[in-house]
């Protein structure tokens, strides 16, 4: 499963998308994100499974893609 990884530099900053990891489940996804992206000093870091992200709209494919 692919997990998207997000982090922010400092408290109050906007959360940035910094990459992704493949992992069999939540536990290893967190560990792998930490190992892969900890070279920089982050304030916090989050992962979420890619398949839980819902597209809201896309200019190329129409105004609203809520119904497909």
């Amino acid at each position, binding site marked *: 499963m692919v997990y998207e990884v997000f982090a922010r530099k400092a408290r109050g900053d906007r959360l940035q998308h910094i990459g992704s990891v493949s*992992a069999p489940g939540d536990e290893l996804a967190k560990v*792998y994100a930490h*190992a892969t992206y900890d070279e920089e000093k982050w304030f916090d870091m989050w992962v979420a499974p890619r398949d839980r992200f819902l597209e809201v709209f896309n200019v190329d494919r129409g105004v609203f893609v809520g119904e497909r």
Partner: protein
Amino acid sequence: MATTLAGSAADLRADVREAVRDLVLVLADSKRLLGFRYGAWILGAPELETGIACASMAQDEWGHARLMYALLKDFDEDVDRLEHARPPREYRSMEVLDREPDDWAGVVGLNALADTALSVQLAALQRCGYLPLRQRVEKLLAEEQYHRAHGMAWARRYAAATPAAREAFASVARATLPPLLAWFGPQDGRGALLANAGICESAPDELRRGFLALVAPVLEATAVAWPVAEAVPLELDGFDEVRRRRAGAGEGPDAETITRVRGDRNRDFLLE
């Protein structure tokens, strides 16, 4: 015994000083060897991400080893000799690190069990009366948190896998636990000296219990027909308290490992 806070090794009583020096060298050598073992699996691990985790853990362990070796200057040790000139039989690293793991289950065994045993020992030094050691422990333990998360997650993955995979990890656990439990040492030896002197917060039996409590959940889940933890034999007859090895444990790490760990082939470039 009243605990004194020692700002340098010279402030420690002679017998305590010797025991602390030996403990620091045990930690330094074990971390250097553990880092080397992780490093060998950066490529060839089951997943790209877990190989990256091995790289990161190897870096951490070598960083910790350097901090520990550097601390030995305070004991008037020749740190360059310790790092680069000792034969395998003088290494104080854990027995379970003597050989390259046969397979990934062996790496997970080192990660979930040996790395955890080292952290249990480190955690007992958080209020160490020898301050230079106490000051280093916090950083080490912070980095170790994710080593344990990685080891435990992988051990649980073995538990949930095929019977053959589960048995591969169980067999690693059966081979690894007796030397690791012995590693904490006899209850009445140097461990007691360090506990009474306010260096180490707990005596060996308590450290063993703490270690087992941390690893028991994954052992129960993974180890097919694993006997209850208390049934793990405690093999302390003839235990070498200086090197923290069981009698008959073998001379030390294999010669090729030590050649590489010492950096023998790169001596021309060594800067000190």
